[in-house]
Structure formats: structure tokens, C-alpha cells
């Protein structure tokens, strides 16, 4: 009653039905919206995310069954109740098969409607609780701003957590975009060191610039050195200095760095007084440093001095099971940065995301999601918003199995139909049930589909 605030969208082409039904539900304490046809309902759902829909079966243009199907494809957690004046066993069966919660034959008893809505509202609140629990569980999968459920990454987190509490030097290996700096920041945050986190990209500066950037300089040390300036080592005193792309440092600086790491003291450029600092160094590289050592491009002694605690971040393609979790996490971050509600990606968009190889790793994923959030009109991102090229399927005639070709073809057709199973089935010239079987067989949709099964006994 008045204590539940569940939100219901009434979809009917007849104004008097919308007005009277919305009025009736509002008096039961629900927050109610209306839509005059299928497209308006889908738009309202995208923009406002209604958890419960009461939809008339017979509407001109897009009928109730199609609305149901499109809603279930994009937001399987939505509860849809269909209403109709003409009940046939056939349509009722179809409705239930497509995931309708129930089927109301007009006119229905006031009590029946109120009880059904109360029951749905209660189930929705259980779903909300589950979502909260899932979020709590997600915290278990976190190390500061990093999230994972892959076993490999969990052990990376464990190592990083333990290492954070020491002052030993850490060397992070990983491809571009795997989150080396994010991990370094997490280690600093976890370390309890009271000084700042200072990051330097060693590849971005020339040797002399990097030298004065790291160690600072005395007045008159070189042309233009107008005043004594502190370097990053001093700035990071009692904190953490993150040296990114350490593999790109010149031989001279490699020696200077080795000295600081050994003696914990250094002189500013042009200075003679040694300055002692308490700095924890975290270095990172996307290169194979061992090979660089073998080839004589990187000092072996510096390599061992840095490589006290090595941590390797796997590329995203090796931890694809993390993608849904990362998408959730990144959308949460992007949503708060952009000041808008981002609820997730559609099943079809998730299929596209998991199929991608992500050479640019998590950074690329974040960029793609950010772009999608900018171009998307609703809180659920669609495949078209992502701007990813269609998944490259096997070349016709190539040595691919029939199953591979079928999987890629179905994925491509589903994408072109924006995840609309009905439309995809028509294009493929097979019935929907067969298509559902194939979608399940090839794992083309998120495992949420399981939750979308009709909850009715």
C-alpha cells in the first residue's frame, strides 16, 4: 500500500484505459507512468528504467507480445504483465513462453489486480536486495579501484596487498592499458605511507629533462635554471614514486636510479649536497626487461634492484570472465563522473563486448564505454553505441567448423537486429524457439537470461 513505492508503466493505446488504470494503481501507492504505444514504452523504459510494465496485448503497430519480447531481450529483469480482452489459449501460451509474468483478461477483478501488483512489488524488492548483495559481493572482488573475479587476478591482488605493507620496491609488468598505474595507486593507498603518490612517465621526457624532473636542480645548474627546484624524488618523500615505462630510461639515468635505490639519497642536478629521502618506488613496464638485460639495453643490477617484488597484470583477453564485472564497475565510475544514471549494457551489447579482443585492455574498454555513454540516449547501452566493428567472423571458405560459422552468423544477425530475437529469427528463417536454443548453445547472451524465465508456477 502506501509504504511501497514500486514503479509501474501502463502501456495501452486507449487513453481512458491508461488514465483509469494509472489512477487506480496510483491510489495503491505506486508511482505510475503511461505510454500510448510500444515504441513510446520502449523509449520510456530506456530513459527511465521502469521495473514493472502492464501492457495491452492488442495495439496498432507494435503489439504487446513484441513489446514483451523486446523488453525481455534488453532488460530481462523487467516484470511484464499482459492484458487482453480476447483471451485465446494460444496467445496466453505465447505470452508466458516469452517471459510474461502473468496474463490478465479484461475486465478483471479490482482485488486480483491489487494482489498481483503487491506480489510483483514484493518480488521486485527481493530482486533489489539481491542486487545489493551482489554489490556487497563485488566489494570482495575489489582491491581499491581494481575489480576482478578471475583467480589469476585475485592472487595478484593478494600479492599487492601484502607487498603494499612493506617498503620494498615493486616492479609491475603488463601491456598498455592493463592498469599498472591504477595498481600502483592502490598499493600506495593500501601502504599507509603518509606522503603523496607521485607519477612520472619515463618515456615522455628526454634524458636531461627526466633527470631534472626526477632529482630537481640547483639555481644556475643549466641555462634557464633560475631557482632551486625540487624533483619528484623529493616531492614523493614519505610517499610513493611511480616510475612508468622504466624500460625506456637511458643508460646514464639507469645508473643514477640504481644509486638512489641503493643509497636512498641523491644530489640535485648541479648540486653537491646529498639529499636523503624516504621513498617507496613502484616501477612499471610493458617491455620484456629480462630480454633488454640480455641484449645489454638495461642494467642487470638495476633490474634486480627493481625486481624485488614482481607483479604481472594479465591482459584483458586472458581474463574475459572479468568483463561483465568491469563493465559494471566502469559504468558506475563513468556515471558518477558524467553525473548521469548508467544502468548497464544490453545483452546484445555484452555479446559484442565479450567477443572483442581488447588489444588496448581495460583502458580501451573504459574508452569504448565512455563513448557509448556519451552517444547513448538511455541508461542501458546498446550495441550501436559502442562503435566497435562487427565481430570478424571466419572468412567464407576458410578452415572453420560449421558450428563456428553458425555461431558468428547468428551473433552478426542478432546484432543487426539490435538483439531482437523475433526479427533475427525471421532473417535466419528459423523459428524463435530454435533460435533461443542456439543462443543458449553458443552462449551468445549473458547468463541473466536464466533469470528471465517466467517466474509463474
Amino acid at each position, binding site marked *: *500500500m502506501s509504504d511501497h513505492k514500486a514503479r509501474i508503466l501502463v502501456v495501452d493505446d486507449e487513453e*481512458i484505459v491508461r488514465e*483509469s*488504470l494509472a489512477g*487506480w494503481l496510483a*491510489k495503491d501507492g505506486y508511482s505510475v507512468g503511461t505510454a500510448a504505444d510500444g515504441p513510446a514504452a520502449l523509449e520510456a523504459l530506456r530513459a527511465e528504467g521502469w521495473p514493472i510494465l502492464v501492457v495491452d496485448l492488442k495495439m496498432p503497430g507494435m503489439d504487446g507480445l513484441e513489446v514483451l519480447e523486446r523488453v525481455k531481450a534488453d532488460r530481462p529483469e523487467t516484470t511484464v504483465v499482459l492484458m487482453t480482452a480476447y483471451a485465446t489459449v494460444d496467445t496466453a501460451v505465447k505470452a508466458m513462453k516469452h517471459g510474461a509474468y502473468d496474463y490478465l483478461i479484461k475486465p478483471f*477483478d479490482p482485488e486480483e*489486480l491489487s494482489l498481483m501488483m503487491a506480489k510483483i512489488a514484493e518480488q521486485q524488492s527481493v530482486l533489489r536486495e539481491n542486487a545489493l548483495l551482489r554489490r556487497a559481493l563485488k566489494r570482495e572482488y575489489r582491491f581499491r579501484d581494481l575489480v576482478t573475479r578471475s583467480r589469476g587476478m585475485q592472487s595478484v591482488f593478494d600479492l599487492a596487498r601484502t607487498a603494499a605493507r612493506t617498503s620494498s620496491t615493486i616492479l609491475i609488468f603488463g601491456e598498455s592499458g592493463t592498469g599498472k598505474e591504477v595498481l600502483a595507486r592502490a598499493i600506495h593507498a593500501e601502504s599507509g605511507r603518509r606522503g603523496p603518490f607521485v607519477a612520472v612517465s619515463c618515456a615522455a621526457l628526454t634524458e636531461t629533462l627526466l633527470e631534472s624532473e626526477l632529482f630537481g636542480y640547483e639555481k644556475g645548474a643549466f641555462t634557464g635554471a633560475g631557482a632551486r627546484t625540487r624533483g619528484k624524488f623529493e616531492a614523493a618523500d614519505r610517499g610513493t614514486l611511480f616510475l612508468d615505462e622504466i624500460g625506456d630510461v637511458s643508460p646514464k639515468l639507469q645508473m643514477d636510479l640504481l644509486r638512489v635505490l641503493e643509497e636512498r639519497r641523491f644530489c640535485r642536478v648541479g648540486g653537491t649536497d646529498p639529499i636523503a629521502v624516504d621513498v617507496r618506488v613502484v616501477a612499471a613496464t610493458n617491455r620484456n626487461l629480462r630480454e633488454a638485460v640480455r641484449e645489454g639495453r638495461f642494467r642487470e643490477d638495476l633490474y634486480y634492484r627493481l625486481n624485488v617484488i614482481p607483479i604481472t597484470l594479465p591482459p584483458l583477453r586472458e581474463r574475459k570472465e572479468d568483463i561483465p564485472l568491469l563493465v559494471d564497475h566502469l559504468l558506475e565510475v563513468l556515471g558518477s563522473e558524467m553525473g548521469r544514471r548508467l544502468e548497464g549494457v544490453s545483452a546484445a551489447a555484452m555479446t559484442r563486448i565479450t567477443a572483442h579482443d581488447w588489444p588496448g585492455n581495460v583502458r580501451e574498454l573504459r574508452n569504448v564505454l565512455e563513448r557509448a555513454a556519451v552517444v547513448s540516449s538511455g541508461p542501458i547501452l546498446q550495441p550501436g553505441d559502442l562503435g566497435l566493428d562487427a565481430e570478424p567472423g571466419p572468412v567464407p571458405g576458410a578452415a572453420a567448423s560449421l558450428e563456428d560459422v553458425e555461431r558468428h552468423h547468428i551473433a552478426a544477425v542478432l546484432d543487426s537486429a539490435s538483439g531482437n530475437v523475433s526479427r533475427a529469427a525471421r532473417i535466419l528463417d528459423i523459428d524463435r524457439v530454435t533460435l533461443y536454443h542456439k543462443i543458449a548453445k553458443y552462449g551468445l547472451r549473458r547468463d541473466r537470461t536464466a533469470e528471465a524465465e517466467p517466474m509463474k508456477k
Partner: protein
Amino acid sequence: MEIAVTWIGESPEPDGLLRATATHLQRALGASAAVVPAAGRPSGALDPRRRQHSSTAILRWLQARVEAAGKVVAVTDADLFIPVLTFVYGEAQLGGPAAVVSIARLRDARAAALTASRLAKEAVHEAGHLFGLVHCGEERCAMRRSASVHDVDVKGGLLCAGCRLRLDEARAAGGATEEAT
């Protein structure tokens, strides 16, 4: 006068029924209420197939005739429905000006007093909606939803403390708006 009570039934108004209703509304809601003659009878509300009157159509008719800032509770002997439901005892525009209550299903042939008491409860219920009140879970509260005559008989004719508080707040806010305009 905040609430006008008016008869829009087909047969003549049962003796004193509306006066009793107005008196009860005044007592239950603390709002001034009086019986006024109807400005005609709503046409076009009858659905010949269902042989019932559309309460939503009646509300539209009433809304066009209600005085500015006033509220009207119309009483009828016609059986009412909204398109998706088999019947309703009444309907009101939530936070709006017009409400209608039917005695068709509330009437007790042997005891006129029982009919009057049921009507009074449902009139308070619909008038409560006009002041923005929604359904209430309290067993005795007039804002409890009734699916049967038995439900109507079980509940009381007054508001529970919570609904009373919400009503006072709504009336204070409404009064403030009126003064401001």
C-alpha cells in the same frame, strides 16, 4: 465550502442520504461540506454492452463543471466500472477536484441506515483521494481499499492517525497555495 456533495443518479435521491453524507465528510475530514443540486446528469458514460457507467467518463464530466478550487463528491445509483476492472465502488482524481461514488453495490434493501453508513465510508475514501491520500493498510481506516461490501462493513468511517496527519499537511499546503495565488 470545500466539498460539494451532489446527486447525479437516475432515480430521485433517497431521502436525506446526501445530507448525512455531507455531515459525515465534515466530521471525518474536518473540511466544510454541503449538498448542492447537480448541474444536470452526465451523458455518454453508459457502456451498453457492460450495462455499467464509466466512472472515468463521469469524472471528466464533473471536472468540467466543478467550481474553481472546489472539490465535488458526486453520488449515483448507477453501477460503475473502469475499463479494465469488473466494477468499482467509486473513483476519484488523485489530488484533483472530482470524485464519484455509487450506491449500486452498497445498497442494503432492508436497512437504509446501513446503506448510508457504507456510502459515508466510501465518500470519505474517495474524498481522501481528492486530498492526495493513497490506500492505507490500517484495518479500520476509511482509506483501506475495499474489494467487497464485507470489506466496507469491516472498516471504519474515519481516517487513521497517519492518514489524518497527511490530510492536514495536504490541506495546509493547499491553503498556502491558494493564499499565494
